[in-house]
Structure formats: structure tokens, C-alpha cells
């Protein structure tokens, strides 16, 4: 239960971080809050010769509004995200997801960038990023780029980040009129990873028809997923004509590779997932209509 030996680096700039990542390649890993990485190191599920800590890097913390979006620095702790008034007002789904992550002691260390880069399929922030079409900002020796959330999660604990690429921030679209947001999950105990969960972001028009509905699922596949078929099915429909349970069932229809384990087989997990989608859909549409 002790990590294997590694060399520790704590550079002052993002440029130095990616330079070190480039030097050491797959033998190096970024560490921020360490709340996912350190357990993996302690259990020797992961072994790295070099850890590059971002704690001294300026500009990776805090939230700021830019035009129509809110940019959150990758090393912003989950506790800071949860306490940020700007985020609560402009990106309510992110604020509402935060208390569901682990426990408050975990959120005091864990970061938003760490959660996204770790990319656990049952975690909350990756699903929130998907539901909101967030844009992930990165830096590598080749320069900065932006990756849409829909292209970021590529496999089990795997992302579009190159080995020498650092996640520097995430831009979330700020809330508009007639939008509603909800996240629902079912976990065996408070703070556990969810058996299944759903994050919903919905926008309606003046006639209470669905303009767009983002439905992201977590715990229901090898990565967080968008329920694309269900989203297409609800677009243009009057909210009053859509039964939440049917939206939930539709979101489960196309799922492949639903995880099955000791606590929940795939069939049960899909029933839970449908119920979570239905509950989130109901709350999000109510908010979009009633404000």
C-alpha cells in the first residue's frame, strides 16, 4: 500500500510542466490534487517514474467569465468550484454536481482538471462537461489547443490528451434564458461512485418546446456518454408531450457495454439509469419553464 519510487517535479510554469512531460513521455504523470492518482499509485495500479506537480503553476486556479462562458482553471479544487458564486449563478449544473463528488475532505484536494483528465466513467464532472458541451483547454510543446468535451473521453480512463499535454482549463457556456439543469445519481453509499447517473441541460423556446436537450450518462459505459438518440427524439417536442420515464427509457436504448459488477448487473444498471434520466429530465425541464 505504498507507491513505488518516483522523482518529484514542481515547476513554476505550464511550459515547464509540458517540457518535463515531453522529456519523460509515458513515464511521467501530472499530479494535481492526487485524489484519484495517489490511490492508484498506492495500489500499484499505476507506476510512474516521474510525477509533475502543478501546485506552483500560476493561472490554473479560479473561475472567470469570458463573453458567454465561464472558464475554470484546471487546478481549481472541487471545494472552490462548489463555493464560487459566479459558477453557481452561471453554470448551475457544475455547482450542483460538486457536492456529489466523494466527501468534503476529497473535494478540498481534488481538482476539476484532475477529475476530467482521470476520466472515470462513473464520475460527475466528465458528464457535466459532456452535457454542457464544455471546451477543454490544453497546452503541449506544440502549443495550446481546445478540445470539445464530446471528443475528449476516448476510452476507459483514457482521454484525447497526449502524453505531453496538460489540461489547463475548461470553458463552460454560461446559462441563458429558458434553460434548466439537473444531475441525479444513485450510489450505494454517500460519496461512492454512482451505479448510474445522468446530467441534463435543456433549453426550451417561448412555446415550451425543447430547443436542445443535452443528456449525459455516467456509470453506464466505458466512458461518460451522450444519449444522442434520446436527445434527437426530444428536440422540437413540447415539454408537456414528453413523459420523463419515456425519455429515460429512450436514453438507455442504444447503450452497449453497460458495466456489470458485484453490485449491479447491466440490466439493473440500465433500469437505475433510466430512472436517473427521468428524474433529471423532470427537474431540468421544470426549471427551464419556470426559471
Amino acid at each position, binding site marked *: *500500500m*505504498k*507507491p*513505488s*519510487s*518516483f*522523482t*518529484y517535479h*514542481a515547476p513554476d510554469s505550464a511550459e515547464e510542466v509540458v517540457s518535463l512531460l515531453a522529456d519523460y513521455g509515458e513515464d511521467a504523470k501530472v*499530479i494535481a490534487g*492526487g*485524489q484519484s492518482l*495517489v*490511490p492508484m*499509485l*498506492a*495500489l500499484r495500479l499505476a507506476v510512474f*517514474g516521474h*510525477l509533475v*506537480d502543478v*501546485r506552483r503553476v500560476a493561472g490554473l486556479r479560479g473561475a472567470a467569465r469570458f463573453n458567454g462562458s465561464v472558464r475554470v482553471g484546471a487546478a481549481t479544487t472541487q*471545494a472552490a468550484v462548489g463555493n464560487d458564486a459566479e459558477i453557481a449563478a452561471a453554470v448551475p449544473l457544475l455547482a450542483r454536481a460538486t*457536492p456529489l463528488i*466523494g*466527501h*468534503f*475532505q*476529497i473535494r*478540498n*484536494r481534488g481538482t476539476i482538471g484532475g477529475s476530467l483528465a482521470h476520466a472515470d466513467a462513473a464520475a460527475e464532472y466528465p458528464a457535466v462537461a459532456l452535457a454542457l458541451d464544455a471546451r477543454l483547454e490544453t497546452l503541449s510543446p506544440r502549443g495550446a489547443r481546445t478540445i470539445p468535451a464530446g471528443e475528449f473521453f476516448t476510452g476507459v480512463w483514457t482521454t484525447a490528451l497526449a502524453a505531453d499535454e496538460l489540461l489547463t482549463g475548461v470553458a463552460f457556456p454560461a446559462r441563458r434564458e429558458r434553460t434548466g439543469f439537473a444531475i441525479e445519481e444513485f*450510489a450505494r*453509499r*454517500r*460519496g461512492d461512485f454512482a451505479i448510474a447517473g445522468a446530467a441534463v441541460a435543456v433549453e426550451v423556446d417561448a412555446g415550451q418546446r425543447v430547443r436542445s436537450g443535452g443528456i449525459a450518462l455516467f456509470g453506464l459505459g466505458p466512458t461518460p456518454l451522450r444519449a444522442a438518440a434520446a436527445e434527437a427524439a426530444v428536440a422540437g417536442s413540447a415539454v408537456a408531450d414528453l413523459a420523463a420515464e419515456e425519455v429515460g427509457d429512450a436514453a438507455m436504448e442504444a447503450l452497449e457495454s453497460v458495466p456489470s459488477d458485484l453490485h449491479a448487473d447491466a440490466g439493473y444498471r440500465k433500469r437505475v439509469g433510466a430512472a436517473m434520466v427521468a428524474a433529471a429530465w423532470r427537474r431540468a425541464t421544470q426549471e427551464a419553464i419556470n426559471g
Partner: protein
Amino acid sequence: MADSDVDIEIRVNGAGRRASVPARLTLADFLRERCRLTGTHLGCEHGVCGACTVLLDGQAVRACLVFAVQADGAEVTTIEAIAAPDGGLSPVQAAFREHHGLQCGFCTPGFVITATAFLRDNPDPTDEQIRDALSGNLCRCTGYQGILKAVRAAAGPAPAESASAPANER
């Protein structure tokens, strides 16, 4: 693989501690083995049980999930500094004793640190908030009811609207 020691300085319970440590040494092991502060207990060593909870720059964290090198320059408070200098129990400690919030005592340092930080930031919690705050610490003896009672007592009476509400287990 090279594992050259790193020089660090951490302020522990008010006293500066300089040391040269391997990068893989956790803060929990640093406190126990280098500082001889063995009140910080290690249960699972991978962030599940909460027994190793300490205050890092005032915030409750799991000391098994922080490397000592990451705490360089920081201030750490352990269970040894929770009682008054004359040995008088803190309100949380006194409430744990009064309400049978411990049995074997292994998990108690983590619970006391957790409850201390929680009540500092939430001086008027509902019962539901107390349950949520304690959910990251495991106890195998008490069945938790004594711990809940202790934290409730340390906090003072519940806010009126929550006092009679049933526990809302998720």
C-alpha cells in the same frame, strides 16, 4: 529509478519541521514516522477510511493521499494539537467522550479532525449536513449513532426546521 530525497519544511502543530524525504513518502507517514505524531492513524492507505484526516492549511484532507513533498511550505494540524495546551479536551473531543462517540478509538482521530473542521465552517448544521460531513470516515465499532450524537451535541441544538425531520438517507 532515481529517488533522490527532497528537502521540505512543514509547520506541524505550530512547530517548523525540516526533513529530507523520499518523494513517495505520504504526509501521513511523515507525521507518524518522522514527527513521531502517531495520533494520525492509517487504516486503508488509499483514501477510503478517513482515519488519517488532518488539517492542511486549515482544510481537512486525507493525509494518505498527500505526499509530504506536496505539503512543503504548508501548515499541518494533527489530532495532537486539538486539545488545549493544558490537556483540556476540545468541545468535539469532550462530546465524543460524553456521547460514546468512540469504542476502540482507531478511527477517532480522523472523526475528531473531520468534525472540528466541519463545525468551524458550519457552526449551525442540520442533522442531514452532519451525516453528510461524517460520510467520509469509517468506524467499525460504534454503529455511528454515538458519533452523530457527539457531533450534534458539539454543534448545539439543531436548527428548528431540521430538528424533527427524518434522516434523509440517499
